[in-house]
């Protein structure tokens, strides 16, 4: 009895905390949705009319059929996936080494990698810009992808290290006795067993890259090369009252893919993020 009353109180507290939190994140999205469904005339009514009287999908239609917008979406997809693949490919061997080998200065190096993650992109923006200019990589998707890759590596190294830690060493020893070399063991035993972790590292990188703004904003000035995040920003800058509803629709279209990916795969992602902590 007491137990259940206590847990009911616990539930109430949880909700009391969760509702404002959810509201904090949901209200902007609802506001966007409301705007995106309005006709230009209704946009002027502002917050007074949250549920439009004449809802319309015309804004979405216009955005999705717009050639420029589709190009931005495609650029985003390209940069996000290439960047994620690159980050995982570069991080995997490093993580494997961190997980399996012991060498001098390993803890310091692990912390160093994390420290890099803590440096804000803004701080290094100007030197980075000059570097990329010197290398001739400004205004290229290749250069932008490289930066995505390097931005993703630190988290990915940590994530994959945890994943590899979860693969029993004994299996690799068994493989060594069965005559496999180190690389072959990695390829045929460790990697397949780490597949769920690798997949979620990829997805996490895709999501982070999708919402990446600073790097493409600095790297790319040619309209045709913009990903959706930069495009929307510029679109918003050029906005007047008559295009607000279009902008809202564009924002939603840009956000929805990550939402879908996250909801569909959240169990996998959360599983990988906590794998080391709660391994039974």
């Amino acid at each position, binding site marked *: 009895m007491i137990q259940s009353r206590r847990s009911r109180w616990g539930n109430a507290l949880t909700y009391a905390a969760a509702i404002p939190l959810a509201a904090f994140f949901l209200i902007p999205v609802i506001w966007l949705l409301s705007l995106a469904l309005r006709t230009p005339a209704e946009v002027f009514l502002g917050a007074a009319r949250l549920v439009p009287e004449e809802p319309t999908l015309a804004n979405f239609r216009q955005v999705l059929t717009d050639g420029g917008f589709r190009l931005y979406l495609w650029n985003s997809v390209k940069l996000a996936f290439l960047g994620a693949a690159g980050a995982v490919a570069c991080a995997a061997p490093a993580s494997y080494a961190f997980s399996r080998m012991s060498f001098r200065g390993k803890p310091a190096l692990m912390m160093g990698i994390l420290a890099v993650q803590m440096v804000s992109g803004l701080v290094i923006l100007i030197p980075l810009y000059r570097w990329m200019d010197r290398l001739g990589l400004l205004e290229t998707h290749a250069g932008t992808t490289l930066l995505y890759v390097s931005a993703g590596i630190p988290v990915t190294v940590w994530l994959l290290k945890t994943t590899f830690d979860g693969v*029993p060493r004994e*299996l690799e*020893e*068994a493989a060594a*006795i069965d*005559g*496999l070399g180190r690389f072959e063991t990695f390829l045929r035993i460790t990697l397949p067993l780490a597949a769920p972790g690798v997949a979620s590292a990829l997805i996490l990188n895709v999501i982070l890259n999708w919402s990446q703004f600073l790097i493409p904003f600095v790297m790319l000035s040619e309209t045709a090369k913009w990903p959706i995040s930069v495009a929307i920003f510029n679109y918003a800058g050029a906005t007047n009252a008559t295009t607000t509803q279009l902008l809202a629709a564009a924002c939603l279209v840009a956000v929805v893919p990550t939402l879908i990916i996250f909801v569909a795969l959240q169990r996998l992602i959360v599983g990988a993020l906590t794998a080391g902590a709660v391994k039974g």
Partner: protein
Amino acid sequence: MADLVLDGLTKSFGETEVVHGIDLSVAENEFVVLVGPSGCGKSTTLRMVAGLEAITGGELRIGGRRVNERSPGERDVAMVFQNYALYPHLTVAQNIAFGLRRKRLPRAERNAAVQEIARLLQIEPLLDRRPRALSGGQRQRVAMGRAIIRDPQVFLFDEPLSNLDARLRVQMRLEIKRLHAAKPVTTLYVTHDQTEAMTMADRVVVMNAGRIEQVGPPLEIYRNPRTRFVAEFIGAPAVNLFDARLSAGAGDGLWIELADGTRLSVPGSRRAAYAGFAGRPVVFGLRPEDISIGSGDDPVAPVNMIEPMGVETLAYLGFGGTEACARLTGGHVPRRGDRVPLQLGLERMILIDPATDRVIGATSTET
């Protein structure tokens, strides 16, 4: 097949040496069991043989060739791990066939080999399953199959039965012995279970704190332990040890005086060996089966506790200033609280020098 020689093998982790020089040769097709308490270095020794742990000092030879620097694959050894170490993403058949990868056999030949092994281990219906869907005993068989199919020079086991329940352990113990009889391979088997060691081994190697205490056939180790450690470690229930004193009697007589004043006469066959210790403190040892119910003028002891085991009964007796365990078979079984006369099989006694913990008069055995 090949013989296996460990020549002064040592292992250090950083500054600390945990294996202090193991000398052991395993003959071709011999089944040798390494036994010892937890942490004594059994696994480390085995892993050095397998090539999973670098050898710090000494030499390891398989079939007469030095293999210290060879990778595990090149040593052509097979190993069964305590947790089986089956590849979870592969089926049973693929797990077993994995060991054949280096041989590059044609597919048909490989499948035939897997089938044959599956038949031998009675796991044919399981071939398409994944390890997750197997019981502990079945996993154990698959792990053995993966090792056997390789037809290796040397077979290594690291406590392969310790994760099984008692009944299955006894069954698999017998099965491994049968397999070895049918397909002999040079084998080094690690366990901390002295029963496993006694029942399976051609020769037992008792290890303690990174050293070999004694090597020999099981019964030899049991009957003629060379140190107090071996005497206590081998045998269940353990040997009874009593603090005592050796004293010279009339003529060439020798007496063992126990703490409670009991005096036992040393049998004639042992007197020569023990004579030098007359007047010194000793530890007197007698195995439980060498204590039985006697008659009339034998020393009398109270029965503190009784454990019926079926064929035999363990009786815990107040004797020699401490408690002694007796293994009684058949006939009259006393009850708790009884006082019984004890007949002691003194011709099988052991005497330990407490200064060195060595068994006095032990014949030195081969290594």
